[in-house]
């Protein structure tokens, strides 16, 4: 069974999660069918195949490892709950993205005070990364972690919709059409959100760079 999972992973790893490639879809169809029929082992395979990507996307959308873990758990529970209604001719990855976006939106909504703790979360992420990087060049790891924290802060300045749009488009690599489908918006709305988000990120970066130059 682990061999089968690895085989599926190899077949689909080269493809983006949102890539509706026929090969990826056809290789997963039997597993999805078995999971739909209530086969827990097949569902476990689905989890193993997608969990890293789900948790990464959730982290990009939420900006916190702890929240990303909770969100990933919730995502798979929803997948299990609604898998019966999933048609195998649909794009599973797109369907999964929709669930991720909805779960992360619910998480963000439930945690209204996120913005107050956002900086704290970023600092904590930074601390974790610094402690992890004990084996390599500590200075380089710290610089990388600082950069990462700065980008997360930049993402925190966006509205939820802008963040979802830019994460899916620029970081997950979906096309704007796919992003529109996942978020249930029109393409023009998504393009507007993406444009606004890119402008805000650019402004944030310029502001930080100016501060660094002065400091």
């Amino acid at each position, binding site marked *: 069974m682990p061999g089968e999972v690895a085989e599926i992973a190899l077949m689909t790893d080269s493809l983006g999660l949102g890539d509706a490639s026929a090969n990826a879809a056809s290789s997963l169809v039997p597993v999805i069918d078995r999971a739909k029929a209530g086969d827990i082992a097949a569902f*476990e395979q689905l989890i193993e195949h997608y969990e890293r990507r789900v948790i990464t996307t959730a982290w990009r959308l939420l900006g916190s490892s702890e929240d990303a873990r909770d969100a990933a*758990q919730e995502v*798979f529970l929803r997948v*299990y709950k609604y898998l*019966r209604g999933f048609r195998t001719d649909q794009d599973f990855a797109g369907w999964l993205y929709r669930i991720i976006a909805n779960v992360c939106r619910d998480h963000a909504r439930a945690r209204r005070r996120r913005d107050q703790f956002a900086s704290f979360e970023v600092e904590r992420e930074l601390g*974790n990364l610094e402690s*992890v990087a004990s084996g390599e060049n500590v200075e380089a790891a710290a610089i990388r972690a600082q950069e990462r924290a700065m980008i997360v802060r930049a*993402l925190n300045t966006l509205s939820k919709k802008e963040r979802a749009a830019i994460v899916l488009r620029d970081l997950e690599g979906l096309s704007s059409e796919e992003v529109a489908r996942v978020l249930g918006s029109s393409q023009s709305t998504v393009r507007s959100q*993406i444009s606004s988000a890119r*402008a805000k990120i650019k402004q944030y970066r310029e502001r930080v760079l100016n501060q660094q130059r002065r400091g």
Partner: protein
Amino acid sequence: MNCRRVRKLIPLYVEDDLAPSAASRIAAHLEWCGRCNWLADEYKESQSWLHTLTPPEFDEALLDDVKHGVLTEIAATRQRPSMLALLAQHWGRRQVLALSAAVLMIFALVVLYVYQARLRVDSALEAAGEPPREEIGPPIENGSPERGSEAAPGAGSQAPHIGSRGRRHLAKRLPKRSTPVEKEPQRSFEVASQSAQTITPGDTSTGSKEMLRIEIQTSDPLIRIIWFAPKETDQHQSKPATD
């Protein structure tokens, strides 16, 4: 395409989110406009910076934790499936929809039946000469002493403002007197009590002899039947009168 328009579209241009025709026009503009070109470069740098965001490494322990959490929750759910889950397991979506439609139809039929039954009662009341239930508000309001005393100061002025729904509501709240009338209108003419009393000739205009006054109280306190009859000659026609 002017600079203002180009600057609006540059955020989309840098990541190829524009239609080819718009992208080529912007590219042509950027060839000769230094300021817009500089802005496009800034956006490209910003986007490159954004793409450097790599998520933290999620170790296997964390991933296993997520997986086991999900599987444990699923196992718990499977042990206690909900009613809907049971329905969904055994029935398909179409069957569930058909069942829902059937339940809705039955509900609608029950509502229709109750409505028609109420209409029938109202029409029976009208046929019996009684006002419809909605119109029996004022006597009911007066029938309850404590409620009458509560509503006494403004009762006269408020009464006309009570709509048919309000009267129906009052009728429901004060059912003691109205219930027999509403349920079986024909019984309202049944004799509740009967009394006979001898009166002097001066009391009536029917004759000079002594008269017998017969009162019949129906179950409706508003209706009382009174007969006056000559006392010694029972064969004479009596003249009914009502209060």
